[in-house]
């Protein structure tokens, strides 16, 4: 794993900045501006502690304490008619605030409203599973563990969902390198052939701009094929690329280009 580097000052390195560019902010409205949301928030606040609440893009965002997540979602499902959990996952804010944001996107078909319930947990904290309320949380919580390493308590079948079971690391963390750490780079070689095969197979070629036209072990240019591994310093000979051999193929009639008719008029 590489060290945490805060990504806040990425703009400082930009070679061009627009003098008149203003970072877009999604406007926030007060909850009292929507009567349905105001009543929902009142019902939640009566039983649980609400840290913050506002309306953004016609959706209410409610910040709660992480230990209340099951209670709040149960209240919303059974009393407030938010019967669907359309999405849930986490956001990595470890470098900025040292914690993850976990969000639950709720939908009420009867009220035609959406509420996003958010809570923040520290790195090594676990969260209670909401799988008993919403079956859709089953795979979402497994994915959250797979991608961020957030443990979920009382989940019926808690294991990785996307990456292999013996994978090390959690790929959606901001610290996880895009090309993978050493474990990821050698995963398939180690697993299939064993660690001693690393020297024979060699490291991955990660430079996607790497083109060596004289490399005859990986690619041959069409029309300039040479035998595998042949040495060509420059100017490989042109090869007539026809699929049939010059002396013909046993029992197969040769296609003669000269004696065939090429139709150029498409509207004939």
């Amino acid at each position, binding site marked *: 794993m590489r060290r945490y580097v805060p990504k806040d000052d990425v703009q400082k390195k930009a070679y061009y900045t627009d003098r008149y560019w203003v970072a877009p902010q999604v406007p926030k409205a007060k909850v009292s501006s929507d009567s349905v949301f105001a009543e929902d928030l009142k019902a939640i606040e009566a039983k649980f502690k609400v840290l913050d609440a506002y309306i953004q893009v016609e959706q209410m965002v409610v910040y709660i304490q992480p230990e209340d997540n099951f209670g709040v979602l149960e209240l919303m499902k059974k009393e407030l008619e938010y019967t669907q959990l359309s999405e849930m996952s986490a956001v990595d804010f470890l470098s900025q605030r040292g914690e993850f944001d976990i969000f639950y996107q709720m939908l009420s078909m009867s009220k035609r409203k959406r509420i996003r319930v958010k809570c923040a947990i520290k790195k090594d904290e676990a969260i209670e599973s909401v799988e008993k309320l919403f079956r859709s949380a089953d795979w979402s919580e497994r994915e959250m563990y797979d991608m961020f390493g957030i443990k979920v308590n009382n989940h019926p079948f808690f294991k990785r969902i996307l*990456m*292999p079971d013996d994978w090390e690391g959690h*790929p959606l963390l901001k610290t*996880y*390198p*895009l*090309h*993978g*750490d050493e474990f*990821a*780079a050698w*995963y*398939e*070689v180690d*697993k*299939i*052939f064993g660690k001693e*095969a690393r020297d*024979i*197979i060699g490291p*991955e*070629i*990660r430079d*996607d701009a790497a083109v060596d036209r004289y490399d005859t072990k*990986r*690619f041959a240019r*069409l029309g300039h094929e040479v035998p595998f591994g042949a040495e060509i310093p420059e100017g490989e000979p042109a090869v007539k690329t026809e*699929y*049939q*051999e010059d002396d013909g*193929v*046993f*029992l197969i009639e040769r296609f003669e280009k000269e004696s065939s008719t090429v139709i150029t008029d498409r509207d004939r």
Partner: protein
Amino acid sequence: MAQHQVNYTQDGGLPVALTTIDKVVNWGRSNSLWALTYGLACCGIEMMASGASRYDFDRFGTIFRASPRQADVLIIAGTLTKKHAEFIKRLYDQMTEPRWVISMGSCANTGGMFNTYATVQGADRIVPVDLYLPGCAPRPETLQYGVMLLQKKIRSEKAIKAQKPKRLL
């Protein structure tokens, strides 16, 4: 029908053709290349199109089989993820020799656009590849041409030889 009738009065009166064992065996092998059904991603759609009526692989003797025991050629059509790598190796090992591998499309050749932690950077890290087809995704004509080139390669080989096991290790 009449023009296909054998004229017994011609060429000494006998319908005999002389050839070598190599040519007959390779003719059989190259014209009945049964391919393993192995569509991993969008290249698999092009592979299916190649097998369907418009491009019609059947006329080359290429019929897709669902079992590696019955397959001669493995067409790796699509992105090979690291999670899947062990399965492709196992299926390749289950195929009977002689066997050939076609790597179809950028992803199978080099990892392609998926320059990430989860993708094998070239199927030739896992199994030996005979033919690389460029493209993202290659058109059915490319796969057709690739199969024809593979046929040519098979015909140029000796049919009966000490089978050198084609393995990376």
